[in-house]
């Protein structure tokens, strides 16, 4: 397999990503810094579809924050104006008038009500925005993924790609629906509280600011420490997860070798390391709360004392109500700052995830400059080929020309390769100078050792990869001119890795032709020799397959894959015979299925069975990316070259 060679080339980088694996948001590798570009882009998503809503949210947050501040300020009014006033009235023998208080309370009630409504609206709208943005990012990511070239999936481990959909999206969700609104409302509260405090007492505000600076310094120090351990924790998590995954995958081998003890010891070591890092990271993160909280208390006490001193000495016209209100405000001042600090780590982590998501979205998609399309055709009255909307069973390539004319070439299934060179990485050519011709209906077999380039050649025909040099023509048309979707539709493929999807057997076969009737499905299954066993399944064609058809045997999976290809009925087939051991009887059934599939089509087969090879019209013997021998079985045997050695070698006793 070429995968092996590729792996080696990418060895070091592959090793690095591999360890990452799924599980837990990954380390904030780039250090604890906000990434403005990613943030801007994320905000862009919000503004794209939710501009008005976002504006409403913005207003709501302000209203809500102001309502909170008004509440604190009201305390001053309550104590100084109303209670104080009434007490004075009482002291001077008058009947205290409670009606101003009633009025003030009604006014306050209205303000509070506005705040509550604002909070409600803000929350509801934010749900729509955060879920909506999440959905569009998720959908965009998946759509994009579908358009990526195969090489992307070679470069990235499946676990890594998966984690974009799980971890990265999840942290993003939390950030959108919690962190950002909270941080936002915190900022507004801070600003409005700051001004209110200034109005109440400038000296006390100065004191609050000073103590705030101290608080921030301490917080910053601790956050830095905990950040370091959080990074270490993420690395440890990845390591432990990786180890667990590997060991549990090989659990049966562990048993057979009595290897439980060393497996436990190695695990303990990693587990201990994770524990230490997690303990430190969380310990530091945990103390932030109490520290800020109590610094807040301390500040509270100091303000009380200071304010008391000021009030007693009558400095700056301080009154008791001022102190009460100020104390309340100072709490509303430190709390949002605490919140911002706590959200900060999280926002950075989420942005790192968003960055990875955007990296996927920004990947270069598969290029497709093709303009030749595949259309239903019929032979017109004058004997020419005409395009038609009906499904005629006859296909033609529609080839528009620059001059405005259109020519139709009937789809026959003739494939030629001319001096083709190819490398997975630019400077490492793995296929050299490959030339081959396949006439319609011919069967071409590729034979050669692992890594000789068999699979690679077939991957070039359907343009999973693009060639570096040379030409591949399909019915005389350069395949670069054919639209990829149409090219692939004309090619059937049965791969070794069967990849069945979660769904019924019927749905899996229908995958090959979405509008297939039930009869067509049964017919395809019969052709593939799969009908028999499918009928014997508990629910026949409606049996649910999960986990790549885990409940079926390897041979049965293959039969369904053959039926899936058969129903599409393409003129050209690419087959990769299974190497894995199926027993002789099943293999016979599978090969019968394969044989009927090959009948009447141009076939490229990566052959492992001698019977397939012998029946081929032409055999290509590949070695290290070159065709070293070609011809039919008899010719190659008589040449006594590599093929002869192979053929006899297989039977040497």
């Amino acid at each position, binding site marked *: 397999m070429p995968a092996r060679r590729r*792996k*080696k080339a990418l060895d070091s980088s592959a090793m690095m990503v*591999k360890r990452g694996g799924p599980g*837990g948001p990954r380390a904030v590798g780039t250090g604890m810094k906000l990434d403005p570009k990613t943030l801007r882009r994320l905000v862009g998503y919000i503004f794209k579809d939710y501009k008005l809503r976002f504006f409403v949210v913005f207003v709501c947050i302000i209203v809500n924050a102001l309502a909170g501040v008004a509440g604190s300020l009201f305390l001053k009014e309550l*104590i100084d104006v109303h*209670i104080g006033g009434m007490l004075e009235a009482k002291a001077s023998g008058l009947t205290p008038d*409670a009606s101003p208080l009633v009025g003030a309370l009604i006014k306050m009630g209205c303000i*509070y009500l506005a*705040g*509550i409504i604002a909070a*409600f609206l803000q*929350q509801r709208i934010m*749900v729509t925005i955060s*879920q909506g943005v*999440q*959905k569009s990012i998720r959908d965009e990511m*998946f*759509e994009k993924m*579908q358009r990526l070239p195969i090489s992307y*999936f070679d470069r990235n481990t499946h676990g890594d*790609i*998966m984690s974009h*959909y799980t971890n990265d999206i999840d942290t993003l969700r939390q950030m959108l629906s919690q962190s950002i609104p909270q941080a936002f409302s915190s900022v507004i509260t801070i600003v409005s509280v700051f001004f209110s405090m200034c109005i109440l007492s400038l000296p006390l505000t100065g004191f609050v600011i000073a103590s705030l600076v101290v608080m921030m310094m301490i917080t910053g120090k601790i956050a830095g420490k905990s950040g370091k351990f959080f990074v270490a924790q993420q690395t440890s*998590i990845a390591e*432990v997860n990786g180890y667990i*995954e590997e060991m*549990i995958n090989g659990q049966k*081998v562990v048993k057979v070798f009595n290897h439980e003890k060393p497996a*436990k010891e190695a*695990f303990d070591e990693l*587990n201990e390391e994770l524990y230490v890092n*997690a303990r430190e990271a*969380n310990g530091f993160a945990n103390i932030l709360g*109490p520290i800020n*909280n109590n610094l807040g*208390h301390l500040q509270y006490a*100091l303000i*009380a004392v200071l304010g008391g001193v000021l009030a*007693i000495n009558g400095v700056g016209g301080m009154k*008791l109500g001022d*102190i009460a209100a100020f104390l309340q405000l100072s709490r509303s001042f430190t709390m949002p700052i605490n919140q911002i600090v706590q959200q900060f780590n999280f926002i950075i982590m989420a942005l790192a995830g968003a960055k990875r998501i955007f990296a996927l979205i920004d990947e270069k998609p598969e290029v497709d400059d093709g303009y030749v399309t595949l259309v239903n055709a019929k032979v017109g009255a004058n004997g020419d080929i005409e395009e038609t909307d009906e499904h005629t069973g006859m296909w033609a390539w529609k080839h528009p020309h620059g001059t405005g004319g259109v020519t139709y070439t009937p789809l026959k299934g003739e494939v030629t390769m001319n001096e083709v060179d190819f490398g997975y990485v630019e400077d490492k050519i793995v296929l050299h100078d490959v030339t081959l011709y396949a006439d319609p209906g011919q069967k071409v077999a590729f*034979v*050669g050792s*692992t*890594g000789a380039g068999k699979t690679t050649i077939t991957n070039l025909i359907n343009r*999973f990869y693009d060639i570096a040099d040379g030409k591949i023509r399909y019915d005389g048309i350069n395949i670069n001119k054919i639209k990829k979707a149409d090219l692939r539709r004309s090619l059937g493929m049965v791969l070794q890795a069967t*990849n069945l999807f979660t769904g019924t057997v019927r749905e899996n076969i229908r995958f090959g032709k979405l509008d297939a009737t039930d009869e067509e499905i049964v017919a395809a299954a019969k052709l593939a020799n799969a009908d028999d066993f499918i009928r014997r399944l508990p629910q026949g064609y409606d049996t649910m397959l999960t986990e790549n058809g885990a409940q079926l045997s*390897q041979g049965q999976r293959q039969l369904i894959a053959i039926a899936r290809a058969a129903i599409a009925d393409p003129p050209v087939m690419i087959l990769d015979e299974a190497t894995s051991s199926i027993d*002789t*009887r099943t293999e016979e059934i599978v090969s019968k299925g394969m044989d009927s599939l090959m009948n009447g089509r141009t076939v490229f087969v990566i*052959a*492992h*069975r*001698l019977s397939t090879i*012998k029946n081929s019209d032409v055999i290509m013997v590949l070695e290290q990316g070159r065709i070293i021998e070609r011809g039919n079985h008899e010719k190659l045997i008589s040449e006594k070259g590599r093929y002869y050695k*192979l053929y006899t070698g*297989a*039977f*040497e*006793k």
Partner: protein
Amino acid sequence: MIKKLLRSVREFKLVSVLTPLFMIGEVVMEVIIPLLMTQLVDNGIEGNGGAGDMNVILLMGGALAVCCLISLFMGFAGAKTGAKASMGFARNLRKDMYYRIQDFSFANIDKFSTASLVTRLTTDVTRVQDAYQMILRIAVRAPIMLIFSLIMSFIINVELSLVFVAVIPVLAVGLFVIMKFVHPVFERVFKRYDTLNNVVKENVSGMRVVKAFVREDYEIGKFHEISGDIYKDFSFAEKVLAFNAPLMQLCAYGGMIAISWLGANLIVFDGTLTTGQLMALITYAMQILMNLMMLSMIFVMVTMSRASAERICEVLDEESDIKSPAGAPASEVANGAIEFRNVKFEYKKGSGKYALSDINISIRSGETIGIIGGTGSSKSTLVQLIPRLYDVSEGSVIVGGKDVREYDIETLRDAVAMVLQKNTLFSGTIKDNLMWGKLDATDEEMTEACKLAQADGFIREFPEGYDTYIEQDGNNVSGGQKQRLCIARALMKHPKILILDDSTSAVDTATDAKIRQAFREKIPDTTKLIIAQRISSVMDADRIIVLDGGKVVDFGTHDELMQSSAIYREVYESQQKGSESVDEAAAAIGERGDE
């Protein structure tokens, strides 16, 4: 369930108890602080007949500062012990689960999928750990704070405190209704997430198929549908949850207004309340509401982690069904003789679906036995009974003259080396992998085993030889090389019985023959059981077992079977006709390349 989990707390019991104590200490301080505030205002600022008493202010201020420091210390200590307790608990949970899995028998392993075991050990543990920390630090703190604050406010003024009595039930009912609505939706959402992830997983691994069939748009449609469902459900759940904050504020603000009005009246008209007391009351009101909010948060978290806790317990509860016998188990396997006596085996007890039945075979020590049969004929099952990877349902398997159930399991498995059909190499060097067979193996021993398995040649061709790094699952060596490394690893054990379960399928016939020849010459006393699809791999064995439908249908030498066994003959002939595999031969030639 909770008891089961708590067993993993162990050495973190002390910190687990200390954490809530510290939290209580912090709470007490936080309750005292507003009290002192009252004193400060009433007797300090307003004291001395309204002129202010500097001494009281300083005294109370000092007391306040001391309380803050104590509270700080408590909070600090609680933070540290809380982290230690919960992370330690998680460590122990992981360890207990992992150890438990190590003790699983094959039957236990079959019951859980690998992916689910991994999630249980990772994500689920994290959820439980977070919930544990939450409970230790906040679940204790919040209700105590709540109660303290309530008591304090009642002490200050009973009438005003009745406001809380009115507000709290409203809040509680509101929260309860919200949770009631939200919980089932969240459960559904998590299931939908599983579906979504499954679609992504299948697409990532099946991208070639999707592209080959030009089904990108079809898959996108499928994805959109699920993604839309999640959007709908999640939005619904969160929109219901969105009632939470306004409800809180409604109660908070309502309470404030009520207290303001009543408080003002009490101060002015009744004179039963001081201004300082009113301020303290308002502070308590805030604390009560804050803690109610905390409690609702904890409630959500704990319900969410409940599912995880259940999944963890499933692993911890799983009892390994294969254990060494009690008392003094046999600690030596005399020789490699094997006997199956009336063996019946079913994978699910009581299912009546016997994978093996009426097995009666006797194998002499040192014999080479081939085993052949179609898919589902239970070849692997048969040999897995020998090292007690599964236990027989009826009858007995006798190794070296003793029932396998009489041996200490480690002794038995050390004597029986098995190369599994689905075999794995582990990330590490070739040497690391070989050492699985024998932990203190010397280089000579390794070379010896590799020579036997015909692996020495290609290993030496690697630039780093025996120190070549093998990637997870042996992804950087070919199938045939991997199989030979696995055989060498098994040989390292110097076993009395060697079982190869279809372990040379990717090795070319010539090399395969060389391996068998080496076995014959170098380890003649080891009993060798070889399962194969290729008839050439077994035809030179001393005797060959033909299995069909879980029964031994024929047992004899190649020549005898050619005479007597229809199945054997059929397989032989079909393979001679040329459905033989050649690509491995090609691989071999390719490797020998330019010789």
